[in-house]
């Protein structure tokens, strides 16, 4: 053991490889969201409570439609990564695996539902 380098002891154990990948993907999407969230809050959020025809017209314009699409794609992707980290902290065994799969389905399902709705309105 004393002759082993620190690297040799941890090599191939896994977490350092997929772990950094997960963190890096979270980091990249978080930087993107720093731009997307203000776009969304100031172009799409004000549409809540507006008449039906106004909402249809607004979501048909490029910028609100783009903001909505990006918010749905990057937002739910970031959520799916983050919630996995939370689950891994508090849930063990089979329940952990099931929770991660269920939350991934919910995240991507909502993303798809939102994008299809947007497409129907905007196109």
């Amino acid at each position, binding site marked *: 053991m004393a002759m082993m380098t620190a690297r040799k002891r941890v090599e191939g154990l896994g977490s350092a490889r997929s772990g950094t990948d997960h963190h890096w993907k979270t980091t990249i999407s*978080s930087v993107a969201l720093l731009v997307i969230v203000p776009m969304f809050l100031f172009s799409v*959020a004000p549409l*809540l409570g507006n008449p*039906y025809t106004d909402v249809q017209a607004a*979501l048909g314009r490029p910028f609100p439609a783009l903001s909505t699409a990006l918010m749905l794609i990057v937002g739910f992707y970031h959520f799916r990564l983050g*919630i996995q980290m939370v689950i891994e902290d508090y849930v063990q065994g089979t329940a952990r695996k099931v929770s991660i799969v269920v939350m991934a389905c919910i995240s991507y399902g*909502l993303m798809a539902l939102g994008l299809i*709705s*947007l497409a129907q309105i905007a196109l």
Partner: protein
Amino acid sequence: MADVNRGDRPLSPHLRVYRAEINMVTSILTRITGVALLGGAVLFVWWLMAAAVSEEYFATVDWLLTSILGDIVMTLSVWALWYHALAGIRHLVWDMGYGFDPDTSDKSAWGAVIGSVALTFLTIITIWGT
């Protein structure tokens, strides 16, 4: 192997043995806001879906989201978005190796708390103005 001393053994430190500190509160809030934003996201997707389905369905969902309860949930969601974003900026800075000393991290913690409330007011005022 009988455990004669079961109730009197040292415990590993957990949340309740620490005095609440700003950096501890901001860390917990980051996670809570991140998870809770699913609620606001579900409501938004529901609203978007309703706008794609029909005018009547949209009217129902839109009424719900702009009712008193809806306004409270949406305002909290806006705050959660801003808070999580500012807390995320702190993490990005930490990841580059800056801002770890207690004084700086205390200041940035308060910055995230106060900043998120300020940005929430700014957003609400802007939305009301349009």
